[in-house]
């Protein structure tokens, strides 16, 4: 069984016929070949598949494709403008937050969902968001540093 579905991903309108039971991660990775979104577990625990749907950070591994008809999706590939990185990408890449990098796309999208909506998010709100993501490499401190750097860059950007 296939259904016609349309949505916008990284600013591009996509119309496709897919099995509505498919999870969003499978469409993103296997149909659209946007492999930046990662799979790290079987049941929505690790957070690395997080993308932004209609402005909200959401796990793509347990979101059925049928639920995203008409939605605007942003994946990690959609953040940079050409070679210009998004402030979150710039901060995370410079704060020591990257080791193996496998959890990175999910964390970047989580922070995007939080900080683009709420640039003045409290440290508790930031830690609540980051607590949804597993990282085995860093001990988390450099990720926190990156998040706070990003917040500052975004606040400065928003002032201008």
């Amino acid at each position, binding site marked *: 069984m296939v259904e016609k579905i349309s949505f916008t991903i990284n600013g591009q309108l996509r119309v496709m016929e897919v099995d509505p039971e498919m999870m969003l991660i499978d469409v993103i990775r296997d149909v659209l070949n946007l492999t930046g979104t*990662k799979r790290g*577990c*079987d049941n929505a625990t*690790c957070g690395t598949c997080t993308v932004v749907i209609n402005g909200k950070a959401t796990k793509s591994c347990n979101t059925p494709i049928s639920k995203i008809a008409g939605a605007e999706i942003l994946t990690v590939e959609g953040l940079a403008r050409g070679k210009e990185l998004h402030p979150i990408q710039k901060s995370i890449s410079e704060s*020591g937050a*990257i080791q193996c990098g496998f959890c990175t796309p999910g964390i970047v999208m989580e922070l995007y969902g939080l900080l683009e909506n709420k640039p003045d998010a409290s440290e508790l709100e930031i830690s609540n968001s980051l607590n949804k993501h597993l*990282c085995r490499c860093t001990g988390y401190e450099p990720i926190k540093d990156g998040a706070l750097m990003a917040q500052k860059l975004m606040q400065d950007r928003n002032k201008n």
Partner: protein
Amino acid sequence: MSYKYIGKSYNRPDAISKVTGKAQYLDDIRLPGMLHAAILRPEHAHARIISIDTSEAEKMPGVVKVVTGKGCDLHYGDNIKDLVPMAVDKVRYIGEPVAAVVADTTFNAQKAVEKIRVEYEPLPVYIDARDAMSEDAVLIHEENGNYWHLPTLNPQSGTNVANLYRLKKGLGKDGFSEAEVVVEGDFLYPLGSCSAIEPHGSIVWFKEDNTIEAWSSSICPFIIRQDLAYSYGIPESDVRVHIPDIGGCFGYKSDITVEQTIAYIASFVPGYPVKWVASRKEDFTSTLLGHGTRMIMKIGAKKDGKLVAMETKVLHSGGAYADTAVNVTIASTHNCTGPYEFDHCDLSGYTVYTNTPPVGAYRGYGHQEAQFATERLMDILARKLGMDSLELREMNYLCEGKINSLGEKMWRTNGDVKACAEKVRNLVFSKEIIHEDENFFYGRGFAALMKSPKGAPFSTKGCYMKMNIDGSISINMGGAEVGQGLRTVVQQIAGEALQIPPERIRVYNDIDTQYSPYEWQTIGSMFTTQGGRAIIRAADKLIMILKQTAAQVLKTDVDYLDYDGEYVFLKNDPSIRVAVPELSRGYITSDGITIGEVAQSVSDARLPRYSNPDQNGQGSLGVEYTFGAQAAEIRIEKKSGKIFVDHFASTFDVGQVINPMQIRGSVMGGVLMAIGATLYEKVEFDQDGKITNPHFFKYHLPTYKEAPQQTVDFIENPGTVGPFGARGIGEHPVIGPAPAILNAIYDAIGIDFFEIPVTPEIIKKALATKHQKEYA
């Protein structure tokens, strides 16, 4: 010593590709005509296979081939060839491959696998080494002793003991006659999972021209190449292995894990690349687990605290195949003295076949399991002697001139454990003691540690270096980047050695056995030390080539010349010079005739004088030991029994810090991983050998809010082997947390624990029992 590029925090060359989602991991690779495999796992952890019916699976949509182990006579392994790519007539653990389906999509392969019917005759299941060692235990491998194995191994035929390693130093057990005080304990570091966020995966392609091409999430491309060539009877040069970006390793992507199984499956569909990626569940059940180590340890000392003798029996539940477990056992055995000198040692390590997934490398293996016991017993001994535990340790540290269990003499250049301990003492124990309050108990605990090098007779690392026409540098090595940041380290070391800015040095991305220099495997915290040495040796050769060409241009002898990264010039008159880029492809003279060689070089480096163990189990691991000290400040919530690690301090004598930001990250990540093992992580089995928690919502990895504040500090007494005196650091941070935290628990509530993880339930129960006793 001051350096231009060493000791500074350069950004990683892979940071941008990882933060933009462009880094390519195994599952991101798409190949033309690629098929997908799904693998059937057994319903029993130990059983004979009576029959397999694949007929229904073959009729399913998208199915290309159904594969079983019937008739497969392949055995593989680096240490013991006891592994099989797919179960033949028997299954030995719950995650073993029994059959597989190759189909057009993963989804179709998985649907078809569910249609395979297997009939089993169950056998007794052993999870713990002690049960598998009982006299009436059924043999998990009837063939034990008959498999090919390294000459240094000692399998016990007719039992489930896959290897027995014995080490005797001095008088051995008889040394206890000199002891005035004895302490002992039975410690367990249970089975755990490395749990990289990227699960294991492989692609294997048997080609029509009789070559094999493979991709794997592995740190051992050259071992995979050698192993596949051996199994399929083709020259090693006809097997090409690629390693893409790796989403974390922590040990279990070393050696050969899933590759032989995927190769076996792919061998049935020549012409098609076959991809398989583990689900998280399979990553637990069907790759390698860590630890499973019981340490039965006895320490004898004089009344003044001088250590004299140690007796240790390591009972290692090694899993269903012992190829990788033997190294874990052996390391747990000879490293169990920790950073102390004992005149007399009687150490024995039993690698025991059990019905769990095979045990293999886990970051730091052999050290954290062993020194968990040592560092707990040092605290217990100090109490018995009425001494300060740090002073007791200080009397016995393996410092210059002392001899370790293997008979190796420690040098001043092995680093200073006393200085590390002193730093940690100041960071944690100079603070005022916090007393119990309404809600919490408070405690602090210490652990010193020793990390031995990891070698093998051929454990070399190579470097290809070439200078481009503009004087920029390209470097290829075989070291696997698993997140540790080795490519940044390569840039910095090469920059320093060549006096060329790291920004002008491009380091390899993926590894390809066709183009990359040989490397044994990227393990044991050895890359900076050995790989760095290879870089310096290659740089020296490259500079010599430049000088030889320049000597012709400047019409002088090589030894009159000097090099500074930009020019080769006459030592006594630097104005007589030639620019380095002009020498890079030989020097083109005014009439077009080129003189000299292209500036490119190759080199390798191994550990000095590594040797196999002798009849007493002693030998040389190759000089490069590292020491450190760690301490925990904890809080135990009275109501819940929950342990909070508020502060964790680490100091290591690493010889020379190469990249401060990266080394700090390595330590913090390692500490948190070991806090996970200490407080949360244990792979649980039911009595039938099924894993009951093969998912992250049951097997709890430490999260953001559970991470302690960390202090990370280094001492830099340069070593003699590594580049600019640098030693390894990758595994060291995981060694101390378990004993430091358990020592802190004793400090807080006066209860000794001998097993991890220490969960809130265990604390509550222990507190209730203590309470009862106090009021009895």
